[in-house]
């Protein structure tokens, strides 16, 4: 695919046809300027977005096909930013999903102009951001890591995590606690105790036993 080079890499480039779109007023955290581009928005060197309101799409279903055709094979990451502003959206979204899949476009839905604007500015702002934030092992403080682990168990909430850690101390001690110990904690009903105990003591591999024997 041929890439369209951006001249000023700091701002979102906006197609003139977007003039009057309320979404523009919600692009606040990054600068934007009008420019002569094929897409509606260019939010990165190789990233572009088409904007579509479902309300408009319902009246002019052919519009988006024309735009996609114009886009050709340009850009590496092509986004269709769709504003869900009708209640009966299922059929439209179903059609758009198929169109996007066949044309190598990533569909992103937003439910308000604010949200759509936020997506555009985030795409620009994060253009060079490494994906560390969504990769594994985000460092946090001890409590949030502990909360994250223990709330994997159904029905355990943050109050329970505080109860557990203030009653037993370390995670190791929490794991070693007997069901009786657990059920004497305030707020721990039989179901919660059972789930906790099972999570710690149930074998990881279910049919390991048979394999060994």
């Amino acid at each position, binding site marked *: 695919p041929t890439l369209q080079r951006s001249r000023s890499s700091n701002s979102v480039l906006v197609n003139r046809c977007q003039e009057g779109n309320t979404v523009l007023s*919600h692009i606040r955290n990054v600068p934007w300027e009008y420019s002569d581009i094929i897409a509606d928005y260019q939010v990165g060197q190789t990233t572009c977005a088409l904007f579509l309101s479902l309300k408009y799409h319902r009246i002019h279903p052919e519009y988006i096909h024309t735009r996609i055709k114009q886009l050709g094979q340009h850009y*590496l*990451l092509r986004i269709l930013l769709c504003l869900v502003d009708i209640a009966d*959206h*299922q059929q439209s*979204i179903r059609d758009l*999903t*198929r169109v996007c*899949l066949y044309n190598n476009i*990533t*569909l992103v839905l937003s*439910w*308000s102009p604010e*949200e759509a604007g*936020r*997506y555009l*500015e*985030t*795409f620009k*702002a994060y*253009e060079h951001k490494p*994906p560390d934030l*969504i*990769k*594994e*092992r*985000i460092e*946090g*403080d*001890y409590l949030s*890591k502990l909360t*994250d*682990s223990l709330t*994997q*168990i159904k029905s355990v909430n943050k*109050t329970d995590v*505080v*109860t557990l850690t*203030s*009653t037993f*101390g370390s995670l*190791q*001690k929490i794991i070693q606690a007997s069901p*009786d*110990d657990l*059920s*004497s904690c*305030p*707020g721990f009903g*039989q179901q919660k*105790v059972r789930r906790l105990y099972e999570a*710690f*003591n149930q*074998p*990881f*591999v*279910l*049919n390991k036993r*048979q*394999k060994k024997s």
Partner: protein
Amino acid sequence: MSVPVLLDPHRDMVTDLLSAAAPLASSSDLPATAPRSQTRGDGLLIMSKGLGVRHVLLAFLQIHADPRNLVFLVNTPSREVEQLQEDLMTVTAARTPSEDSADQVHPGMLKIINNETPANERAVLYLMGGIIAVTSRILVVDMLNKVVPLELITGIMVNHAHRVSDASTEAFILRIFREKNKIGFIKAFSDEPESFVNGFWKLERTMKLLFLRSVFLWPRFHVKVDAAIERSGRADLVELRVPLTRSMKEIQTSLVECMEQCLAELRRNNPTIDAEDFTVENAFFKSFDSILRQQLDPIWHRIGQKSKQLVNDLKTLRKLLSYLVSYDCVTFNSFLETILTANSTDPTAVFRSEATSSPWLLLDAAHTLFSVARQRVYKKRPGASGSAVDGVPPHIEPVLEEQPKWRVLQNVMREIEAERKRMRDHGEGSVLILVDGDRTCSQIRDILSGLDLTVIKAEAQERKTSIANKSKGVASRKRQRDNSEVIDVDEVEVPEAGGSSAAANANRSKALMHGSNGTGQLLRRLLRYYFRWKGGLSKVTKNLFRRKDQKTDSISGGASRGGASVARGRGGGGGGGRGNAPPNKRRRVRGGGNAGSSDTGRHNHGGGESELAATFEEEAAEVAAFLNQSDQRQESSNGTFDKPSEDQLDPTSYKDCYGIMETPELVTVRPYASSSNSIAGGSASNGDDDARALEELRPQWIVMYDPDVGFVRRVEIFKAQHPEMRLKVYFMVYDNSVEEQRYLSQIRKEKGAFEKLIREKATATSDELQVMAVPVDQDGRVQEDPDEVFWRGLDTRLAGGQTIPAADANKVIVDVREFRSSLPSLLHARRINLAPCTLEVGDYVLSPTLCVERKSVSDLISSLKSGRLYTQCEAMSLHYKTPVLLIEFDRDKAFSLVTAGEVRGDISGWDVGSRLTLLVLSFPKLRIIWSSSPEATAEIFEDLKKNQEEPKIEVAMAIGVENVETVESAYSITPSNVLRSLPGINSKNYRHIMARAENLKEVSEWTIEQCQEVLGQEFGRMLYNFFRTDPKEDG
């Protein structure tokens, strides 16, 4: 063991369902064209709770226990199945008493297939026939993989039919079954009539899902049930209405007021909702949650964070209402304190919503609640010093209010004992005490053990009380004893204002000693734990909730944690005793309420005002400091639940008191099966365990410490089955309490439900007035139109409409773990052929190039947070040309990712949208499907399947598999999720751990060398340290 007797109504229920034309042995012989008017053994049986579904199920198991049949029992928890198996053996053994019958009574009569049964063994079991209790998820996979001979199935029995919904696997199973098998029966059972009237035409919809046309209703007020119970004469019933103490009433009032405020606030915030059902009375019940959700779910995205918090708060408040009567005062208070602590946490959560604090904590009523709850436990004495008495800090004066029922129970036990003496000739009948929950159960055991003499002996000199009888040895046998020494609750409650230090000291030790009986001892022990726990809590808050720039070693004052909460809510609470405390929400709660409500709780504490304003954590810090200096020598490795030696419980007598079920003792304390861990499979149990307990123990006296509708019925049935037995029942309930209200309306609701069901049924079966019309072909036995079958087989895309092999056409490969969701069932309904297998990469494979990872919204949020989604997308991108992320919303919930008005000024890395953006940027090839419901997903999948090559199961299965062995084994979900969320563990190494260790517990005990061997230097140390970080220790 005795064989449960079938009462007349039970026999009728069985014959109802059995019906004349019901296929017994070889169903396949019956012509498929048999007249449709007969029910052929199909039907839904709904009976009152406690009337004994077990008896009916057992009867059917007996009828079908024959290798020539193939009957499946689904939707039955394993614990229930095991018991049915046991009962079935007993019954069969009793019926055929001959010697050689032992071969016939083989355990294989009711076979169990669960996720531990290997696939090849399952295939053999299906072919062997008989009755098979099987986990639904496994049965559906085996049905789709054609391991189950669908045509040969005699019938399917669905237990707990009220839990079947259109998304449940059971409905899926029945659809597959009916598609291929028009002859076999479907029987469904339920003892929860209320669930069939919740929601819109629930009964009609459930019957449709079950492919049933007839329903049989057996309410408790059915003439035949009534007659059977009356015939044997009723049991003696003593109803004890126990008044609440003054402070309990005060707490109850405060809680109700908080609930009222929450509801009012909720109505105010959401003027559009129908507030008719939003009453405090309704809010007492669990079902209120569903009423609330029904109303709020469709607009869930539009309601603010505040309303969501209110919904959660109502849940918490309802819990507190029931804990008020079921917990002791110490535990109740510490639960309240934990709520406070948890609510003041720093926004550690990824999404701000989780960090919002509860508005009810700021109410005056909440202030009353907290102070009264604390006054039930202890009072603070200003300026006291000295050493600890019995593990309690010097400035603390224990109050330790007993639960009123405890005293009543003790009296009842004495009465029973007296009665037993009077009627010696009748032999010694046993006493059964039924309580709600394991916690209460062990409490009651403690209390009753305190009535025993062996425990009191050591204290005898200190007490003026004459102890009449000498020990009889059997610890649990109760003897009458003058217990007048026990300090009256009211006396303790009213303390002398500003009394002299000496008097206060005396009072204090008196209170500490008070009650040589079990209650006093229990409470004192709990109080010791409480203070130790509080010391721990202080360190935890200090270590976890502090702000980094704050000084950490300050003992006095909330400085150690104060900064955690953002200043908000009421204006500054200046009443704090320590000046150095920074603005702090907690302080505000207390301080703010200080001026207004000082007369509510603490009017008798002259000099204590400043102390009153002290925050919980100040106290906790003090306690911690105190414990540090005095406790070090005797402190054991962990300060949790080691039994202190002062309890004077020598191990032998202790064991006697507690080994309740081990020895045939006269008094048995038991939690209701539905409320216990140890006895039944928890909430999944339908309480039939209680009926078994009755049959096993055959008690002469029954004390219902907590009211339970189902158990009342079980006692009635038990009495009817054994008319010769004498039976006296004590029924205890707190007067004018929420507990009472709950019990009464439970009965009312069940009755109402049946009346409604009867009306619905009447309209359904009468031919003239077809309001709820049941279609004739609802039972799914109608043969398919051959034309339709023909046209479906054609593929119009292929020239000339040539047929392609049906099994390969329109195929989607599904990961077996996905069968917990409703999507596979919906895909199947759209005539997509499902190929279940274990997939390493992706959840659904639509074509050789198209692979889909399905995420519900909550999964999406958590997997973006944990990084799992990144790894999954990485793997999909590596192996498939078109990786797809499916974001699936709930049908009933809002179709939107961000709540309206939640878009904030700045771009934040914590927002879902930002993270999703980052994901899209990282994987330009990744496509996203947004689906408003599983139904919509099914439609979209159908679209995407068009013009695509069919995927190959062998290829899909092999992708991403490093080690062939892993495919064979199934991982238990929760433990592996917890493991993967631990530091040092990522998607690449977690398997190594699961291969090495049996369970999480084993991992937690690994040495640092073991950890590092598996995970490497750095990760190994991280994991090792994480397990051992103890926030209760200074560091």
